[in-house]
């Protein structure tokens, strides 16, 4: 009888430990870089297009963005993901490309943000916008680029259209991602 009681108590003890561990994992809830992406139709009217990619090393990143990967490598690149979205602005289908880079440290993220090779030199500051700093460039009716950084993440958003309305959408994307990082 004692033997069975001992086994029963042991089982209860082990189950207890298992539950405790499970609760502990839920508390920590480790996010992946993909969890930071704007979800399908999370911003009304903007749905996934193309194939999402995740790059876990510089070789993979090079496969996706070619020579542009070097800039990130120079600043401690760790991981990145990209997702495209299609939506309608002014009766035309437009595409947003959202890139999220894990640069390993806050300092690296800011260094990328400030790197002139990214082509955002002279950009308009977006005060009180997303991230710790944010800025954007408008390319004469053709496209827009917005970037910001928060913690170890550097975010770049590219839209192949340029109006005030489209800039607001780009900003919504930025704020959405920023909210997930915080």
């Amino acid at each position, binding site marked *: 009888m004692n033997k069975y009681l001992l086994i029963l108590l042991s089982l209860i003890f082990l189950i207890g430990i298992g539950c405790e561990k499970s609760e502990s994992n839920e508390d920590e809830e480790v996010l992946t870089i993909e969890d930071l992406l704007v979800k399908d139709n999370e911003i009304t009217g903007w749905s996934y297009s193309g194939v999402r990619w995740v790059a876990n090393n510089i070789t993979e990143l090079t496969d996706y963005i070619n020579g542009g990967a070097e800039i990130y490598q120079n600043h401690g690149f760790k991981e990145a993901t990209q997702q495209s979205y299609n939506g309608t602005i002014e009766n035309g289908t437009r595409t947003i490309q959202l890139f999220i880079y894990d640069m390993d440290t806050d300092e690296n993220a800011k260094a990328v943000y400030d790197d002139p090779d990214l082509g955002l030199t002279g950009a308009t500051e977006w005060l009180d916008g997303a991230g710790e700093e944010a800025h954007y460039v408008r*390319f004469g009716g053709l496209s827009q680029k917005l970037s910001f950084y928060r913690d170890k993440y550097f975010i770049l958003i590219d839209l192949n259209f340029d109006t005030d309305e489209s800039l607001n959408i780009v900003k919504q994307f930025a704020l959405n991602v920023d909210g997930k990082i915080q």
Partner: protein
Amino acid sequence: MISESFLSQIDRRKFLRILSFTGLAGLIYPSNLISSILNKPLSRIVTVTHDDATSGTLINEDKVHMMMDIGVRTLAQIDDSGEAWKSLLPDVNDSSVIAIKVNCAAPAVPSHPEIVNAVVEGLKLMNFGGSFFPEKNIIIYERSNYELQLAGFTINTSGTGVQCFGTDSSGVGYSSEFYDVNGSNQKLSTIVTQMADFIINLSVLKNHGLSGVTLCLKNHYGTCHNAIQLHGNNCDPWIPALNATVPIKGKQHLNIVDGLFGIKAGGPSGSPQFVANQLIMSKDIVATDYIGTELLKENGCLTANAAHHIATAAQDPYTLGTNDPTEMDLVNIYNPVTNIENQLASKGFQMKQNYPNPFGSNTQIEFYTPKRSDVRFTVFTDKGQKICEPINTTFSKGWHTISWDGKNTSKQEIDNGFYIGQLISKGFKKSIIMQKIR
């Protein structure tokens, strides 16, 4: 042989202007004169710009086809489109395989399918004893199928129709042989090493954070297997070294920059940032990239000065071309009008390029009339202003020669520069470009 018949419809509002490199570099002496002094062959570069090539982000396919056709005929200095293409691909025959290296690294600004189609249509005009060049012998290629598809191309490995696939396509891959690229061992796409007899390099107008610009020279980073090793020191001299490898250097005969749209900052990825509505083409890859870089600078590209690989490519040991404007014969074509050459040629009229050209005090123009005809020959400036009308009379059937002394109607010698000679007869109108030098 030369007769710029696309000038046959001169529209003064949208006038076609031909300028020497002096327009670009601000130099005051004509390139051909320098060439004669130095006894060096010039690298001919043609740019074709059309304001209506794009509308917003849309591409006018008819216009870009015309631009390509005019550009190639001007580059080859041959009127017939098919013959012009053949002349750019030495010893091409109907069993040759021609690979077109496109650049799809930025899906929103790729080598546009419309431009590639214009190249394909041109190649298909090559006639070999009554049969045209088979489209199944044309391969559109890039590093991966994924990139091609994102850029709007349809993968085709069927063996019929124009082929289109990436090096990562099943059964393709990279060479087993390594090529020394400035100390980096690189495998090249078997499309280049095994399949193709000729390469047409069709790049895009973009800046690049490391190499300064990415045009035709850099385009072949999509041909080798491990390009990431080739990015140090602004990619210099790895870019020239890659282009100097035997398969690439030996097979590449034509370089085209798709400059309809451009990226001037933050490249090579991104969306279009400016409109240039231009094609640049040359057999000289260095000259092509030099002119493309100038165009990027004109549009505010701040990284272009980092593109010192272009100068390196011109020097020993690479000597892939020239980056010296005085060694270039640059022809800029603006807003060309619709080509009606083929309709007119059928009537039997012919007109040859003036000789000598450039000319000093006198030049001659030969033409043929298939029957007794009234013929008028008029000279215009490149801005469409009439200079003189050396001939306005009736000619019998046969060959005739017009002589022009380089003077205007007041018998004053005209300034140095480019002039348009236009021959008009009933049902026939054709123009040539003449260069006056003292």
